[in-house]
């Protein structure tokens, strides 16, 4: 199975963290479904041009979080994801995205009211377009 993880070599974020974050969100958001067999550590490392040490660390972390399980001799699979994890993930990713938007707003000296107004405008526009 090919996993759509995109590495940014120039990012300050450590490689294992980039891979882990993206793989976690692919699993929790359901892009990679329960029971999927992930690539072997060596195969994934080859795809991502990283070392097996990094991939092993990512698999181990996500296994500890209960997102993956490893069956001796067969490989690493995606586990069942509970609704709680899904909710938490939603809050987490949306929260992070908004936080960086607010940071950008502050860096160009937006007031709180201005930010709220921009936010509401975007929400209105996007949700109206959908309905």
């Amino acid at each position, binding site marked *: 199975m090919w996993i759509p993880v995109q590495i940014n070599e*120039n990012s*300050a974020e*450590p490689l*294992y963290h980039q891979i882990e974050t993206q793989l976690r969100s692919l699993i929790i958001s359901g892009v990679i479904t329960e029971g999927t067999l992930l690539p*072997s550590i060596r195969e994934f490392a080859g795809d991502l*041009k*990283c*070392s097996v040490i990094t991939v092993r660390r990512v698999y181990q972390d996500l296994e500890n979080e209960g997102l993956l399980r490893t069956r001796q001799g067969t490989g690493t699979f995606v586990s069942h994801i509970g609704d709680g994890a899904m909710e938490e993930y939603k809050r987490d990713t949306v929260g992070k995205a908004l936080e960086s938007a607010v940071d950008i707003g502050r860096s160009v000296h937006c007031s709180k009211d201005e930010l709220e107004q921009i936010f509401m405008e975007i929400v209105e526009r996007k949700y109206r377009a959908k309905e």
Partner: protein
Amino acid sequence: MVQMAIELRNVLKQRRNKTIGPLTMNLPRGYITALVGQNGSGKSTLLNLLMQLTNPEEGEIYWFENRYDSGLPLELRQTIAYVPETSITEENHWNAEEAAQFRQHWYPNWDESYFQDLMDRFEVPYHMRLSKMSKGERRKFEIAAALASRPSLLLLDEPSSGLDPFAWKIMIETLLKYMDENNATIIISTHIVEEVRRLADYIMLMHRGELLGMAEKDSLFGTWTEVWVQVAGEEELAELSAELPGGINFTMDTPGVASFIIEQFSKNEKRIQDLGVKVIKSRSLELDEILGLWTQGHRPILIDHKRGD
């Protein structure tokens, strides 16, 4: 528990006009280690020592945690494959088929169907004398024959020299697949950055006969970042460099923009911002730049494997 494929203890090799060593290193089993360094830094000598094609004047070498001072036993040799920098001449008068027959005699794990499969994939002619082959064809034969012996330890001395990009890609994929399916260990001496990126788990740097150390690849590639910042002038840049003791090469690039190189940018980024300095752009250094800094004494985070860690 980590098992060692190779261990060197203060290994010293005297060459006519230079000294290699003392070399001390531990190479864990199951990984691909890229051996890098300038021409003449001692990479091939190190590989020759591991094949006992040459013996050290001082120090100890361990293969799979054993010493064999009076010669590598046959059973061990049969698990080691070596692609030397220049092919041996003894097989020159044979074609690939005959050379394979000869090797099959010495390597009990010889996998003939795997050999033929690799030869087909590489499109190497079977019935041409090895000495008549082009450099690339000969190289492909050597790689296929080395793998067909199903080694536990594979030593590759610049294996891709002479390979076209298609053959190169097949070689990379083949080596990765071999590692995936076998608990093997590969040491590959190379100058090709992309080869290191695609294959290596660890990087070992040699410089003027000395081993400068071993680093985990991803940690090494993330070590240094070049950062461009907005500063008013030399004075402000001097203040900034005083606040960043790990930084080097502070330079004014154009009026208002300066650049420098810093370690562990992920940790230092916030510090720079807290100083009120705007980061315009950043990029990770390339392998050649990293190795350049390393040989100048800017050491990255090194790994020291201990038996049984």
